[in-house]
């Protein structure tokens, strides 16, 4: 007799970041199907879905509803850091756990959250260490006007300045806003060596599109590279041809074999991270009757080698750090680090930023 365990899914199916949320939702649902079909397990996951529709004010009530109206104690989802922070107090009150499957800006290690995607020492720091010697040290920073954009650009600024570079400009757009004209004018005026783009969804698509137009009008601007920590394959169709040359960083790109491993192929790291979340939860609950009611703290109160890769101090994962460039409409990995230990507070900077950079391997294709 398999244990029937309800788990919450909290992904927006509408709104400015629906593509990212949809990718995570697909990964979670796929993992649930696999687990339910696995004869070696003693449990069946029953998804309890709520759709906040990209409305920030719906996350908290819908999360509370999952935790009060059903027996679910684990919720997979939220996409923006803003929505994750909205639901944490609710999780604290109800003793619930959130499995958060997106890259984020770090400086958090909640007792009620497992972070299955990358934090800055796994995305932004390796990306900047790779980019600064290649492209130059004059940076232009853009981002969406909330904590992801702000903190990503703050860390980027620190890294650029520490490398002796300068930040030529830093501009923000409200989530969903597509008026990128000022940013484009500033890029034209300042001619940066590279642009770090932490815009989300349509703002980002519009920026990339306007930048492509600028390149056509202004050949001297050349191929000013655009870097991002949050664009994955799930958004490439929406961005279209102007994504060409975009450089991204993440623990996984379509077809990568290192993580999550097991020969499984995912559309994007967003899908992979949500899949890993469900799979890891299943591994923690399997053959432990009653464990589904435990708090995360109790669930993880076991030897480190039984935590399925979750760092007990930070609840983050050790992840590869892959840098990939869009070529012919697909991400091609151009550099990788195999396993980067999570450091969400960037407090182990000396370890992660050695003076030389021997750990980056260049892949020629």
């Amino acid at each position, binding site marked *: 007799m398999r244990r029937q365990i309800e788990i919450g899914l909290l992904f927006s199916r509408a709104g400015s970041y629906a593509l990212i949320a949809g990718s995570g939702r697909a990964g979670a649902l796929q993992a649930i199907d696999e687990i339910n079909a696995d004869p070696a397990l003693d449990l069946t996951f029953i998804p309890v879905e709520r759709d906040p529709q990209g409305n920030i004010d719906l996350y908290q009530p819908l999360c509370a509803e999952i935790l009060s109206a059903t027996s679910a104690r684990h919720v997979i989802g939220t996409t923006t850091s803003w929505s994750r922070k909205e639901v944490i107090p609710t999780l604290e009150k109800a003793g619930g756990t959130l499995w958060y499957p997106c890259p984020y800006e770090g400086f958090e290690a909640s007792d009620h959250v497992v972070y299955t995607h990358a934090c800055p020492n796994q995305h932004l720091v390796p990306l900047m260490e790779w980019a600064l010697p290649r492209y130059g040290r004059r940076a232009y920073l853009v981002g969406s006007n909330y904590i992801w954009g702000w903190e990503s650009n703050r860390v980027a600024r620190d890294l650029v300045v520490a490398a002796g570079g300068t*930040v030529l400009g830093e501009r923000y757009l409200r989530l969903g806003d597509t008026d990128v004209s000022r940013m484009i004018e500033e890029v034209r005026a300042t001619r940066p060596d590279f642009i770090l783009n932490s815009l989300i969804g349509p703002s980002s698509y519009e920026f990339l599109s306007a930048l492509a137009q600028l390149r056509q009008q202004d050949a001297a601007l050349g191929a000013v590279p655009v870097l991002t920590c949050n664009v994955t394959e799930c958004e490439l169709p929406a961005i279209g041809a102007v994504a060409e040359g975009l450089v991204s960083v993440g623990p996984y790109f379509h077809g990568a074999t290192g993580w999550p491993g097991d020969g499984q192929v995912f559309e994007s790291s967003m899908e992979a991270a949500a899949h890993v979340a469900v799979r890891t939860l299943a591994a923690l609950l399997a053959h432990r009757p009653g464990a589904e009611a435990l708090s995360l703290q109790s669930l993880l109160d076991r030897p480190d080698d039984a935590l399925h890769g979750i760092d007990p101090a930070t609840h983050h994962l050790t992840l590869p750090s892959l840098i990939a460039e869009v070529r012919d409409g697909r991400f091609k990995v151009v550099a990788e680090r195999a396993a980067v230990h999570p450091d*969400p507070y*960037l*407090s*182990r900077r*000396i370890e992660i930023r050695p003076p030389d950079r021997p750990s980056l391997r260049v892949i020629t294709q």
Partner: protein
Amino acid sequence: MSRGLYVPNLGGARAVIVHRPHPTVAALKRQLGAIGLSVEACWPELPASAVMADYIFFDVDMGHDSQFPWKPGDAPMPMIALIGSEAPGRIEWALSQKAAGKILKPVGDGGVFSALLIARQTFDARNAMAAEIADLRARLSERQTVVQAVMLLARTAGSEERAYDQLRQMAMSWRVTIEQAAARMIAHGAPAAGSRLRQK
């Protein structure tokens, strides 16, 4: 776009928690560990190694002066108050310890990182200000010496204004403060007209 906040390198920093065994200690240890600090909890006595800690978290509910191996307010590192009862007497005691940050109990899921940053900045700013005030005080107390030196110099310089200007030039060439130059000059006696003072 100036950089406002200095983020100290917390990886490998040491924190000591002065609190009786309690879930508060476990919650603090978890947060500190996640940030990257090493943590030691103690109660009621502080271990000798506490003087080498980078941060002290101390219980305001049960704490008292004699627990600490320094005079109240003289801790050589930032002190962060763990406040349960907000009774004025207890707040007063926390302030007498010159707490540079605070966290309210019960300690939950957050609060430690911001407390660390705020305490570090407050502590450093307070020390810098204290050093500046001590320096200004010392210079103030040397006013008499400066007046004496100017009077001595005025005998040969002709006017107090010229004497003061001479003293200032001496200080500049010796690379010392005006007060130090004045003290040195008095110790050597007034120079003869046109002669140069040699640096001791």
